[in-house]
């Protein structure tokens, strides 16, 4: 099933007389359950693509169909509502809310969504905290955690509302290689176990190695789109 369908998506930034084509006619289909890495040099348009996939920014031209629904001309409220329900993010610097505990950070998307009662919100949050291996640390604050633990909380936060897609912008860039490996393994495991769709923008070879599909972008265009058999699945 196609989770995201992008058709000739273009993003043009204008600064005075200058025009920058950050994305120049992107066509991609992302299937549900994919573990996809978007790679490319700095300034190639990876982050712009993730922003557009995440409804944080609107394309200048082209079509995007999310889970069979085309979102066009949505205002700020409509985009916010879509993000609230269907999209999650994992950031390079984790971006946990420092004043909230681990559990409260994980509960946050559900609290913003305002769909479930507090008991169910807590149950799901605790379940996700357990899934990322942080049981017992529910009442800690982000400052009491290591970088790897913070990123685990960020992953739990991203997964708790069962989104259509999880967009991860350089999720391992701030981690040492051992922790990065653990985080990639964790996301890979969740992807395999729950069928959650992950789209990464990354420079990290480790993430690329684990990705089942690697889309290369250069100057706002897709220059390669390869299916892979990641080492963890090789021989299965």
């Amino acid at each position, binding site marked *: 099933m196609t989770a995201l369908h992008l058709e000739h998506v273009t993003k043009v930034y204008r600064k005075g007389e200058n025009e920058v084509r950050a994305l120049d006619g992107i066509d991609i289909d992302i299937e549900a359950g994919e573990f996809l890495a978007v790679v490319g040099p700095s300034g190639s348009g990876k982050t712009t693509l993730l*922003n557009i996939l*995440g409804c*944080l*920014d609107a394309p200048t031209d082209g079509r995007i169909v999310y889970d069979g629904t085309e979102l066009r001309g949505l205002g*700020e*409220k409509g985009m*916010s*509502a879509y*993000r*609230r*329900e269907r999209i*999650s*993010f994992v*950031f390079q*610097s984790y*971006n946990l*809310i*420092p*004043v*909230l505990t681990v559990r*409260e950070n994980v509960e*946050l*998307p559900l*609290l*913003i*969504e305002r769909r479930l009662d507090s008991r169910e919100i807590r149950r799901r949050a605790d379940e996700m905290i357990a899934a990322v291996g942080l049981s017992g640390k529910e009442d800690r604050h982000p400052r009491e955690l290591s970088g790897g633990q913070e990123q685990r909380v960020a992953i739990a936060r991203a997964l708790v509302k069962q989104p259509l897609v999880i967009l991860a912008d350089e999720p391992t860039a701030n981690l040492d290689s051992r922790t990065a490996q653990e985080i990639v393994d964790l996301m890979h495991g969740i992807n395999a176990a729950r069928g959650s769709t992950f789209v990464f923008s990354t420079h990290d070879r480790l993430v690329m190695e684990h990705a089942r599909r690697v889309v290369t972008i250069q100057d706002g265009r897709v220059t390669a789109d390869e299916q892979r058999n990641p080492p963890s699945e090789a021989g299965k």
Partner: protein
Amino acid sequence: MGTLWKIAVRNTLRHGRRTIITAVVMMVGISVFISFDSMLAGLDRMAVDNIADYTLSSLKIRTPAYVQDIQSTPLDKGLAHPEETLAAVAAQGLPGAARIRFVARVSNYTDEIPVLADAVDPSADARVFKLAQSVTAGAWLSSAAPRSVVLGAELARELKLNVGDAVLVTAQTVHDVTNADEYTVAGLVSTPVPEVNRGGFFIPLDDARVLLDTPPGPGALVTEVDVALPRASSLSAAIVQGDAAARRLRAALPGEQIDPIGSLAASYLALRNAKASYALIPVIIVLIISAVGIVNTILMSVYSRVREIGVLRAYGMTSRDIRLLFTLEGLALGLAGSSLGVAVGALLDSLLIAGGIDLAAFSQGSLPISGILRGEWNPRTMLIGFIFGVVVSLVAARIPARRAARLEPTEALRFQ
């Protein structure tokens, strides 16, 4: 809303130092406002009580013609039937005292000072005024000691007079002829009203009538009847009570001019209000400073949390939610500052009420406010101060809250 409130309150607590500084500035503004108002209410109360107790009484009955010509203290415009007037006052269950006001010159045979003299019924006057209790040397007037007078302590000092000394008093009679007579100083009064101390001169009615050459007996000259009213719980209650008593007496004494304390002390209250509004300027400045502090504190909060705003937007919060979040931080600051302000204001109030401030140092002025100034409880002012602090915070928070709400999520997430 619950989540936003939780984040807002925790952020307010997290940045403890700047929260404390902002809240303390607010606290100072609000507590000064509250205690200042308490002192002003105390001053009003004190001044009006002193006016009632030592100079004008709580309610005055005179003829309209007398009041119209009051500058010349006319002796020919006294009350037509003073006994009936006093009876009408007594019928209301109120103490009343007859007086004659006249211009006199008091001399120690060397120097002479003009005074506004009050001829009083010694025993009735003591039930209306507190002069008899303010005698610091000698004794109050008594029918048992005729040809005696009581002087304000300052006046006596000025004339180098002491209890037992002879004093020469000169006045115009009702026939406009100058008359003079010698009296003995029976006592000296020292009151919280500087005007009485400097120019108070009290003489028994019977002696004054002889001096003024007006016949004694029924219908004898009385220029005013002064009435005391029970002590009210506050200044406004005293004014309401005075107005009600005046209405009742007007019904019983049609044709007489009846002025309650609200009208008698009008000039003092007008003067006080003018001074009070100037004195409130520093309080307003402190509150403006605290508003600037709130704008600054929340702006700092916005700038230190740009990425957090980006995350909240990414997870679906609208710009309205973000605006609400920072408005709630302003509200939290406002509630903290206002609560502290009211608490400290109440503490200062209780100190002012229990201990008071000795105004001896300020008694040189013309306002009847010497003695111990005690504050008054002012729950209405506390409520106004609290609401004002919260409203100022909410208004001040609007500026940074709008700035935070205008941040695009992509920009906010990129922010380093």
